[in-house]
């Protein structure tokens, strides 16, 4: 067991070096956004039709309902190198499938506890509501999240 100590120290030094190399100003976070088909995806389209520019750092994956978003998806995204994950759902009471967004918010809350144990800051996993008409809100949430994750820096590889 003792022999592993110097190896670990070496590793830590490496991490420090990597950190030095990254100029946080140039850091472009990779963020995965899970959007439901009926509200938030339509909200994103609305921002598009209105040609409101926003940060390109969020890659969108469409699901039919936020209730489909399996916590596994979020963990997989972090595992594969995402610096942040967003879940955008219909507003409470607006879910096309009645209550999928309530499931999504419950799962998100539980997942945040788990993420903490993994050393992933909860700010990296954002849950929010966007309706089909809220193009401006969609843009604001995207830009805000990108800024937040930029400030947090890249997700530490443990």
């Amino acid at each position: 067991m003792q022999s592993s100590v110097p190896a670990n120290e070496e590793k830590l030094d490496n991490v420090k070096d990597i950190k030095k190399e990254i100029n946080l100003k140039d850091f472009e976070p990779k963020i995965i956004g899970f959007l439901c088909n009926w509200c938030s995806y339509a909200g994103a389209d609305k921002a598009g039709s209105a040609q409101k520019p926003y940060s390109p750092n969020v890659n969108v994956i469409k699901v039919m309902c936020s209730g489909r978003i399996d916590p596994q998806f979020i963990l997989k995204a972090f595992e594969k190198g995402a610096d942040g994950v967003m879940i955008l759902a219909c507003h409470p009471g607006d879910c096309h499938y009645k209550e999928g967004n309530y499931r999504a918010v419950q799962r998100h809350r539980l997942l945040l506890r788990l993420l903490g144990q993994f050393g992933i800051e909860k700010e990296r996993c954002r849950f929010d509501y966007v309706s089909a008409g809220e193009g401006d809100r969609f843009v604001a949430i995207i830009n805000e999240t990108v800024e937040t994750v930029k400030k947090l820096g890249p997700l530490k590889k443990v």
Partner: protein
Amino acid sequence: MKTAVYFCSCGTNISDKIDPRTVEDAVKKSNADVIFKTAGFLCSEDGKEFLRKDIIDNGIEAVVIPACSPRDHEKTFMNVLSAAGVNPYMMQMVNIREQIAWVTEDKEKAAAKAINYINAAISRVMLQEPLEKREIDICSDAVVVGAGPAGLKAALSLAEAGRKVTVVEKSPTIGGLPVRYEEIFPNMECGPCMLEPIMGEALHGNASGNIEFLTLSEIEGVVGSYGNFTVKIRRSPRYVDTEKCIGCAECIAPCPVSSKNPFNCGMNDRKAIDFSFAGALPNVPYVNAGVCLRFNGGEGGGKENAGDAGDNGDNENAGLCRLCIDACPVGEEAFKFGEKEEILERNAGSIILATGSSLYDCRNIPSLGYAKIPDVYNSIEFERMLASNGPTEGSIKTADGGEPQSFAIVHCVGSLDKNHKDYCSGICCEYAFKFNHIIRNKIPSAKIYHLYKEMVIPGKESGGLYEHAVEDKNTVFIRVSDINGMTVKEEGNKEGEGGKKIVSYGLLRSARNSDHYCASGDNGNISVDLVILCPAVVPGKDMDKLAGILEVVKDKNGFFEELHGRTDAGRSKIKGVYLAGTCHSPMDIKEAMSEGMAAVGYVLSGLVVGRKLSIDPLSAVVNQDICSGCKVCIGVCPYKAVSFDEEKGSSSVNELLCQGCGTCVAACPSSAIKANQFTNEEIFAEIGIMTA
């Protein structure tokens, strides 16, 4: 799998920001086998034809289309795939217009993002499976539960469209609540007369052959789903043959026993064999077996006193009362005293719930004295008092037989009150002004007080009755602060003896037309002869049972819950079960009738004779081998589409009821459920490429 990318430039909408050549080079670099082509307007007729031909010519099996939002043209391109002989679900659109080109300022970043998205789509489309729309045969018939305005309108309209309809009505008569009302707002039309043409048409009109009325009947069970329900109906015996009886009423007078008439809220008696009221339809009396001597061991009169109608004529009937039979001009054959309760089964593709509502129990506000103090009535009891076929034959009387000279009409009883019902029923003010009008006609000098919290009289025709009341010098409006704080007491402690009632209230605003003026916030008292309470409209008493049988969801107030409160208020959350009238929300007769028609629209457009029902393949599928039987999926499904097979110990999804949200898929701890077109593998593939 031979895969092609068809990049749509959308004129210059996309290519202005995202250079197709850059994208093509990058995509081909990571996907050597993929064909990449660019078109100007893929959604144009030329574009679609190019797409169709190219798919065929190159033997393409899976297609990725970077273009506009799938919300614009996914269906368009799915149809092209079908036309090219490729399964339409073997396609993935990439939204590079709305979600990249139009919103990304930096061209390089836009192109990089598009390349990333397209690569993700390629990796995903290769995992996609061809899905087939399944088609099932349907039964185009319908069951309508409830024969009030909404149910009758629905049944008649469906019958006129050639559909077979079974109307299940729990009471012995059809017509619902309006047949109890002598006159209805806003135009003082006669309630039964208004319904008469519809009821007559439904019973005897051209389309009546398509309608089966089952009175004294209730839904006992329902199995199956949209398109193919089997409805079990429990029919209680009427003991009179509806086909043979001629409705002459000769049997009624000789009948020696009586009981309270529920139709008149127990305010008078009916014979053991009687109509609910004069003019009831179907025009056939019914026997109350609870009091009829034949069922209660009592001997009665009648000539032979031996042998019997509807029975085998054996001796056990000897000595039983037969006064009604003897009085009947048709004779024994009109009676069916041997009739037993029956369980009937009807097949139906759709079910329309039009079960109506009832009134909030005024005893829940004990200070109002309802059911304790004489001359305190709820609105439906007062309606019966006003009716010429009611217990007082239309004359307004106090308990001691006198004519009341002063009235308190209390609006908003139990309404707009979080301790009782937090909503406004929207009809009470209107009928309260109808009462005002009728009282004024019958007793011109009467003093009428309206005590209300809020005044709600919507609709273009409602102003008239209200104006009459406002202009009337003997009608007083008192806006009170709280109905719960109101008390009704008998004057001078003569409990139960009738006489004046003192109504005490907290005043919210100074009263209009009032000689009982007091300042806002003060308490006021009025002394009246008769009090009419206008309670909130609440769900009917039998709705719990029905909701349980049909698994229809109820809202927080106990009404059937709509699929969507505005866009789909006529549909329940169970596919193929529609809602009409006050079973899902308080409303007036006009709205209930319109809702009956709306339900018919759903039935006619949803299930077309000769057309099969096609099932969207975007549903969830349970792998029975992996399912551990934990039933988590059943609890999360908003559509009751998941059921549990106790024998197999596993869940299964009814693809007809499943709406494809995927909530159960995410909930399954064993990953035993697959969401067609949104499988874990497909989404993991997207995640993998997008984070790379």
